């Protein structure tokens, strides 16, 4: 079930204020995305915790309406 990229970006930004989000529709089908999320809120957290924060912001959609979101998280730009 497709989900528009703008919705994903909006939810992540609402859940993690100040986050920068870059999103790519991998297959052009609105169902397979790659997102890079950059936020100082990730500092000092493990990758698992960082991804959990993003999944939390998506409020249960991940694994449901949102099938595939390849996630890269970082506290600051490399």
């Amino acid at each position, binding site marked *: 079930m497709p989900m528009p990229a703008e919705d994903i970006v909006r939810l992540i930004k609402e859940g993690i204020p100040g986050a920068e989000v870059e999103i790519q529709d991998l297959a052009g089908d609105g169902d397979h995305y790659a997102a890079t999320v950059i936020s100082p809120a990730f500092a000092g957290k493990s*990758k*698992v915790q960082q*991804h959990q924060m993003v999944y939390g912001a998506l409020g249960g959609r*991940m*694994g*449901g309406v949102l099938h595939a979101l*390849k*996630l*890269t998280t970082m506290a600051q730009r490399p």
Partner: protein
Amino acid sequence: MSDPQVFERIRDEIGRNEVLLFMKGTPVFPQCGFSAAVVDVLSQLGVKFHGINILVDPELREGIKEFSQWPTIPQLYVKGEFVGGCDIVREMFETGELETFFKEKGVALADAA
């Protein structure tokens, strides 16, 4: 909410298997690209692991998501610790972090075939 007995089963499996992958399909025949990617990484490192096919076990399929607080499959556990899903495992593999992690955990790595 999942039945507490499911969590009990999960804890038991995690306790019995040094390297455990909750996955879709089996290590020989993964049924999802993300699960296949983790199997591939573990094979490249020569890590022996046990795979649990959650597709044939709906109770476990829901239970593991709650247990790990992680919404997707695959999920990799090493010596009781949740390492992550496909993206984290792949990223750690590419940076060499995963190999170091296995060594630190005392998990045997064979030379890649």
